[in-house]
């Protein structure tokens, strides 16, 4: 019994991402077509060359037909994936496995989300019929539970914690300001972050990711195929996805100080990829900063900071664009925006740009000794979580 991984068996030969934001004039069909055609262009293939599709959308689609109708696919397999906020990465994972299994030569992973047509603030869950005893808390409230618990465990004062969270918000907004595709392209001051309207617990509006519309896609082939050899491909070096038992809200054993599912998936992905010290080996990390305390805790669960010290590293600028290991150089969910089903593939897109030296100069990370990047994407909430980690590299 083991997860064997598919290291060096799958190559990403094209990646795309639309602009994210309040796209009032753009529908789901437009988003799907734009992301799909741009991914094909990036990969140097025609849409008709793609043998199968994995299509992620949590709130904007019902089936594979939503994609096949938009792209006018002629009898191609389309699998619709919906797995909360980790949908985009689960799309990628299943597409990669199909290639690794030899079932198809060329596949597309595509995530499309149209959240702004609902008229609601924040993300809206569509729960199956139930007995009415489930928590009605919103995602920011559920993630805000991390803050008091973390402070208490590590003796971090409320003001210091606030500074660290504000630093994360400011960093990701500063990065997003350099990204033409981002939803929010303005730097924010500490005063703006600290004075933002309250959302949940100690989180204000500027501690939360932006709900947005958008789409992203990737084209995958076998690593030993001619298509991969002929292009500057990225290779899947390690990939892990786990769903926890969901006992956190019911079991006093869970402490709301870490995300154990993330730690488990990171360990496995690093093992497959042969990463021993991620902080010194990775060029960048794209992580699931749905809320500022999430990014803080993730630094520890992804083994980028020691336990109890992420707040210190954050304040020291370790994860800034010019820091030792840039985290979310594209602005992250925080300022790039979070079109749920697309986010995992948006993270991949930034790795695609950065590892291949194609990121815009103003936020390009240059370090020729580091040829790997990390994508971390999660779904659920502390205590009942799914976590995805992949490591992508430029060489086989």
């Amino acid at each position, binding site marked *: 019994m083991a997860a064997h991984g598919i290291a060096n068996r799958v190559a990403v030969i094209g990646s795309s991402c639309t602009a994210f934001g309040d796209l009032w004039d753009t529908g789901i069909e437009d988003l799907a077509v734009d992301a799909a055609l741009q991914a094909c262009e990036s990969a140097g293939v025609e849409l008709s060359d793609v043998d199968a599709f994995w299509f992620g959308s949590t709130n904007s689609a019902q089936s594979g037909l939503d994609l096949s109708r938009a792209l006018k696919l002629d009898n191609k397999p389309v699998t619709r994936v919906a797995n909360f906020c980790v949908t985009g990465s689960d799309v990628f994972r299943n597409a990669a496995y199909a290639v690794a299994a030899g079932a198809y030569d060329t596949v597309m992973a595509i995530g499309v989300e149209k959240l702004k047509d609902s*008229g609601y603030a924040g993300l809206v869950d569509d729960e199956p019929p139930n007995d009415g005893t489930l928590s*009605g808390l919103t995602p920011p409230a559920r993630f805000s539970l991390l803050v008091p618990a973390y402070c208490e465990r590590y003796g971090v004062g409320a003001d210091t914690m606030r500074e660290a969270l504000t630093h994360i918000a400011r960093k990701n907004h500063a990065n997003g300001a350099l990204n033409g595709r981002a939803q929010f392209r303005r730097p924010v001051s500490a005063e703006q972050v600290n004075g933002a309207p309250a959302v949940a617990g100690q989180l204000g509006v500027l501690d939360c990711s932006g709900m947005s519309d958008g789409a992203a896609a990737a084209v995958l082939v076998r690593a030993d195929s001619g298509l991969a050899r002929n292009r500057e491909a990225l290779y899947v070096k390690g990939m892990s996805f786990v769903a926890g*038992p969901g006992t956190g*809200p019911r079991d*006093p054993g869970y402490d709301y100080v870490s995300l154990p599912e993330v730690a488990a998936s990171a360990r496995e992905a690093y093992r497959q990829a042969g990463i021993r010290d991620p902080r010194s080996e990775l060029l960048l990390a794209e992580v699931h900063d749905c809320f500022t305390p999430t990014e803080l805790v993730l630094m520890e669960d992804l083994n980028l900071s020691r336990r109890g010290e992420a707040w210190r590293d954050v304040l020291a600028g370790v994860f800034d664009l010019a820091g030792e290991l840039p985290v979310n150089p594209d602005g992250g969910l925080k300022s790039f925006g979070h079109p749920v089903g697309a986010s995992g593939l948006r993270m991949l897109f930034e790795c695609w740009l950065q590892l291949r030296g194609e990121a815009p100069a103003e936020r390009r990370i240059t370090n020729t000794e580091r040829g790997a990047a990390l994508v971390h994407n999660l779904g659920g909430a502390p205590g009942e979580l799914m976590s995805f980690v992949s490591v992508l590299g430029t060489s086989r």
Partner: protein
Amino acid sequence: MSGLVVTSYGSYLPGNRVSRAEMSATLGRGPLSGQRTAAGHDEDSITMAVEALRAARGAAVAEPALLAYVTSSPVYLERSNSSIIHAALDLPARVLAHDAIGTAQTTVAMLRHALRAGEPAAVVAADVRGGLPGSEFEWFGCDAAAAVTLAPEGTAPAMARHLGGATTTLPVGDTWMSAGEGVPRSWDGRFAAHALTPGAIDLAEEVLTRYGDPARVRFVVSAGNRRVRADVIRQGRKRGWTYLGGVIDDLGYAGAADPLLVMAAAFDVLPPASRLLVLTVADGASAHLWEIDEGIESRSARSLSAQADRRHPLAYSAYLRWRGDLAEDPPRRPEPDRVSAPAALRNRRWKYALMGAECDRCRARNVPAQRICGHCRQPARMRPVPLQDTPGTIRSWTVDHLAYSTGDKVIAAVVDLDGGGRLSCEVADTHGERLAAGRRVIPTFRRVSTRDGLHNYFWKVCPLRGEVK
């Protein structure tokens, strides 16, 4: 004599108090003093009845064969309200639970029927008392619930025994609430006093004389009309009877719950061997004489006066909002989903009674029962563990400004229960208290949400006050 005795009783007063001065000043009316008791935004005549019965059940020994529930503010007219109360108390299916929609006389009648039926019974009455803004019904209404349990003599210590009583019926019509209108209205109070007081006093005298020495007796009065109530007390005193005043005099009228509430207030303070006349005046009168027994010594510490002392100010504007009398712009969030009736029925012991479970393999507490134990991860048979009276400690907490709420912002906590298991749920009745990890809390039955006229009941926790370490 049926052979039934009172084996326990309980009362429930919500913690919110609205200043009568603020209520009257808002409409430019004259000055008033005192405060009225108001149900929380997540409370209604069902949840309050559950809380009163939980208080009563603390001392009760026998399961009732009958649960009679009286209210004039029913949550449902079709669908038994009492079936929800029955489920919250985790009573066996064979217990007959039924609603009696009506006000004070109905409560007295249900008590009388239960006494005559001769089977163990619980009688509970609860009301949310509204009234048009600016009316005495609003100012001097009281949201409350009260309950008594009855059991055959000898099966449990007797707190009180019924000596006898009598009733008159008269179509006075001094107060009325049209079905569907939801607010009471009244005739001139002087007419009510004229029509009701003499008959009530005569009836009381008849009962007192028939069952012994009036000088031994204390009397209490339940009357919806303030003038009638004052008049009856005055006339009684004139005849040399001793009125048992106290906390009840300042509370206001609790509708269907009022006769049991005044009785509970008296039971709270009377010593064994004393006698109590409960005089209910509405559409006639009822006079019932009780003798307090030794079992009263084991009454609950949660007296009515202890509850009345908990005064948490509630702004009149919030009171109006919570009752739907002041409509506000809703948040840009979807309304909560409608509860699935099949799912609620399947999970009734968890949903309504907060029944947890213990794994038969590793003894870990699971909240609620699971097919696979959350601790040992093995398929398990789970033994039910009641949790509704289990206190817990807040591990982490938050305020959700975005979530849909029936009142103000949703406050939620992760609560580690004494003896194991965890609840992640809303916190009720914080009354502005800033919570902290370590705060002690206790479960409370609440109305969580409403959709399409279907109400969702579940448990929250509320701060545990006055815990003895």
